[in-house]
């Protein structure tokens, strides 16, 4: 039931017109009817196979091997290591496992906060911009600017602003507002977590905005009119019509943001360089350090496989829960 429920709505709606009712033209017959969906899926499937699935399988194989610089010239010669790489990764009493676990919890907290804020800002902005007013087009463009800037440039600019001695942030809170006794550090130490969060939200929320804005366009106007006739105010309309109508879009959006943020590599890498401060040591950077930096791809792959399993589990549970919730409100 975990994953099957996920597609409940899609299935149910699809069934309404499927299978026999669909084409008016009878001639191509069953052959065409059965094979058409597969033909439509084929390009996507082949490409995913090539770029993601096969490399993923190789990655899983590598996670059982001892792949260090001595063997990378021909990875098939790397000796098998059984579960050795996994044992290192989950030995939480030893420094490697302990650091991985810590990094994992940091990433979870970071992801939840970042996704929540991105969605909140995106949804609020999209709803506020739904109705026409002067300057709406301009704002809509401005809001997409963070999305249009190359990641490297955007993040390096934030790093520039968060410098302790010369940055804008400390210039404002320390020099101009006098909120702190001494200028705080933002790129090292415990504050780095908030730095990362701010940059990640700044970079990520326009995507939520974009997707929700597109989703709002599909809500029939009659629904608002009917609600207005019933005497519902604008806040109530948002709660009773906009939010429920956005459900399918939100379901995918939140999942997308979650996976995306969880695996984000570019932001911490550009912000902190090769070694993130412990407070902001995200798992993707951590794995990069455990494989590329130390040339130990076996352990790195094992950590990735564990991550994959975790994300699969979360996704499964998430889809099951959201779909059930959706069914309940629908029916």
């Amino acid at each position, binding site marked *: 039931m975990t994953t099957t429920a996920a597609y409940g709505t899609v299935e149910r709606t699809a069934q309404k017109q499927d299978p026999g009712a669909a084409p008016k033209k009878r001639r191509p017959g069953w*052959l065409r009817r*059965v*094979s058409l969906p*597969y033909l439509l899926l*084929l390009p996507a*499937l*082949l490409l995913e*196979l*090539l770029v993601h*699935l*096969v490399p993923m*399988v*190789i990655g899983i*194989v590598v996670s059982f091997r001892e792949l260090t*610089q*001595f063997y*990378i*010239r*021909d*990875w*098939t*010669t790397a000796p098998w290591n059984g579960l050795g790489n996994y044992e*290192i990764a989950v*030995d939480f009493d*030893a*420094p*490697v496992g302990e*650091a991985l676990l810590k990094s994992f919890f940091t990433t979870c907290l970071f992801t939840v906060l970042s996704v929540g804020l991105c969605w909140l800002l995106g949804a609020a902005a999209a709803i506020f911009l739904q109705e026409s007013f002067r300057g709406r087009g301009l704002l809509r463009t401005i809001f997409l600017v963070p999305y249009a800037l190359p990641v490297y440039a955007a993040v390096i600019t934030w790093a520039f602003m968060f*410098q*302790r*001695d*010369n940055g804008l942030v400390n210039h404002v809170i320390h020099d101009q507002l006098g909120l702190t006794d001494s*200028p705080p*550090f933002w*790129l*090292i*130490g415990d504050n780095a977590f908030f730095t990362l969060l701010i940059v990640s939200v700044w970079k990520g929320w326009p995507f939520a905005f974009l997707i929700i804005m597109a989703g709002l366009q599909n809500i029939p106007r009659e629904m608002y009119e009917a609600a207005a006739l019933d005497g519902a105010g604008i806040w109530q309309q948002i709660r009773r019509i906009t939010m429920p109508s956005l459900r399918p879009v939100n379901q995918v959006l939140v999942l997308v943001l979650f996976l995306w943020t969880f695996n984000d590599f570019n932001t911490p890498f550009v912000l*902190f*360089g*090769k*070694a993130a*401060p*412990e407070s902001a040591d995200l798992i993707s950077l951590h794995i990069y*350090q*455990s494989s*590329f*930096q*130390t*040339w*130990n791809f076996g*352990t790195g792959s094992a950590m990735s496989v564990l991550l994959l399993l975790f994300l699969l589990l979360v996704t499964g549970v998430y889809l099951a829960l959201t779909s059930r919730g959706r069914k309940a409100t629908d029916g």
Partner: protein
Amino acid sequence: MRRSRVASIAAVTLSLVLASAACGGGSTGSEGGSNEQPKTLTYWASNQGASLEVDKKVLQPELDKFEKETGIKVKLEVVPWSDLLNRILTATTSGQGPDVLNIGNTWSASLQATGALLPWDAKNFEAIGGKDRFVDSALGSTGTQGQDPAAVPLYSMAYALYYNKKMFADAGIEKPPATWSELTDVGEKLSKNGKWALGAEGSNLSNNIHQVFVLGKQHGADFFTPDGKADFTSDGAVAAVKQYVDFMAKDKIIAPGNAEYAQNQSLSDFAKDKTAMVLWQTASATFKSLGMNEDEWGVAPAPVQSGTPGTGTNTNSMVAGINMAVFKNTKNIDGAKKFVKFMTSDEEQKILNSAYGSIPPVKSAQEDPAFDSPALKVLRDTLATSATALPQVPEESQFETVVGTAVKELFADAAAGRKVTTESVRAKLEKAEQQMSTS
């Protein structure tokens, strides 16, 4: 119909998996390289000049010269430092790489362990004019001791103490410090009114390693045992790391803000008269681009604990530099060797090293008057008499990552006003060492 499609998809998957599994590395056969394509070479150069474009302008005329001499066309690509190691890694894995490439000399042993690089045995060295043409210290950073070098030295650099003449004059200091105790003494005079004595790049892992490695040498510690095991917690190593971090924590001659520096901000502080000294390798070009005139700064050998720079505990620099390597599976092995010979010839060494502000690792080229300027003379003498290569072990890059991070974290502690004690230093290094042994 449907079944056959499923079957064909399965077949495609399987063949892809098998293909990628079977052909693993592309480096099968031709262990010593071949001469299938004798007319072309590809060359990955590292970024040595002010920008990638500057490098192309420096190198291209020389490559044209080489083509005129030998008829071999060299395809040049200048690879940024941010990409170089990953590019080499993928080239090694797939067997699709350049024929000749530059590597950071500290990577030599790590890359040597992959077995992808041509070993420079006596015969190969003979082809480029002999091993004894090169300076010993530079040769010491070309691979694990006791094995044939994996690369040939191309450019050399060394650390020196750069000082801001105006700030020294203002504080009434006449000569640059030669020992660490002198440095902390002048440091107290210099560190006031928002100005600081010494700059550091506390978040730059490689730089941290270079500094604590030299201090380690001065405390008689090596970070690796002679048989290549990590040894980060010896008293000497702990003392070295503590001494470096204490410049900020105890002596308070490094500004706390330097703990987060990793983008050469310490150099711009120096150029702005905010910091009086930096320990750096060949910084002159950078000072110039930051708007500093040559007569505004001076160079002195990096300090030692006592006495004058020399060998052993009087080491005052690591051997920094760039090596040139040849991929074993090249299809133009003779041409590749000719190219290395050309690049390490006296004439090219003079041209290239003058262009980049580095020192030639080739003895006869080093004596050229072009490298006699006061700034370069200090570096040259350091390289000749008092520089030591970083540990030549395959785990060098792990060492840089874990110990460099430990130093970074200690700087962060110091900057936040937390105590840095012998115990806390030892604990951090112990953690670093454990990460080495399990990975």
